[in-house]
């Protein structure tokens, strides 16, 4: 085994509760196919026990937190995937219309950048993890993915601010609808 069992044991119910709460907070639903949903929750529980954090059941984690951070559920790719396809990569989180109309949920392409996938298996690249976090972030946003620079959104009802491609479906703080969000731009004066 490449991983030692983590001491923390979690129940399936705890994993489910956490996912339900997070779905409610961000305006999503959990996969309506109960059997499939349970298989995903079991995968999350297994990963939490293996690695100490619930990394995506449909991606291979390294066990190195810094390398796996973007795939810890809810992963960095959930929101853009739900926006584009109606559900996330593993199918745990589903957009409201897809859940309510029971639209088909099919496999979607991997959005995780190939450099991150490569870093997770190529040994020479693992040394990247020793670099300071800020350095990694700066390279990813400004140089490797100029198109993926995130926008800043502001909830006009409560003042919550987030960086995302699109505003959330509901404000996680005050529950205001998406329409209450405005795009923010920052201007440095002087």
């Amino acid at each position, binding site marked *: 085994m490449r991983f030692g069992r983590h001491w923390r044991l979690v129940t399936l119910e705890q994993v489910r509760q956490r996912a339900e709460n997070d779905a409610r907070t961000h305006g999503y639903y959990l996969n309506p196919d109960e059997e*499939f949903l349970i298989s995903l929750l*079991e*995968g999350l529980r297994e990963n939490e026990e293996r690695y100490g954090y619930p990394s995506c*059941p*449909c991606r*291979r984690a390294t066990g190195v937190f810094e390398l796996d951070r973007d795939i810890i559920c809810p992963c960095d790719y959930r929101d853009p995937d739900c926006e584009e396809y109606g559900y996330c990569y593993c199918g745990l989180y589903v957009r409201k219309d897809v859940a309510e109309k029971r639209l088909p949920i099919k496999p979607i*392409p*991997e959005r995780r950048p*190939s450099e991150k996938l490569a870093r997770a*298996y190529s040994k020479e690249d693992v040394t990247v993890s020793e670099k300071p976090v800020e350095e990694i972030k700066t390279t990813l946003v400004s140089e490797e993915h100029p198109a993926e620079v995130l926008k800043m959104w502001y909830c006009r009802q409560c003042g919550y601010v987030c960086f995302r491609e699109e505003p959330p479906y509901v404000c996680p703080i005050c529950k205001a609808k998406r329409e209450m969000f405005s795009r923010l731009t920052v201007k440095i004066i002087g």
Partner: protein
Amino acid sequence: MNVVKVDGKNSKHRVLLYALSTCGWCRKTKKFLTDNSVAHEYIDVDLCTDEEYEQICRDILERGGRIAFPTLIVDDSRLITGFNVDEIREALEIGNT
């Protein structure tokens, strides 16, 4: 590397599946192959060592695939990424019953 061999009546093609033991889509793929009695081999890449995983990734990339699971390799030539039932049916010559 732990290669799991699954017997089946349908052994027309050589079928190798790279999967994750925790993944819902991989589980569906395994079930599909078993339900259709397809003889196949599978490897759960999350249970492999880093060296074995690196070897598997190189294999997938050399075949022109993307690092994503499930990845199905039929007859050592055709690679299918994801649980795309129609494509898998076609590659394995399984009718829509």
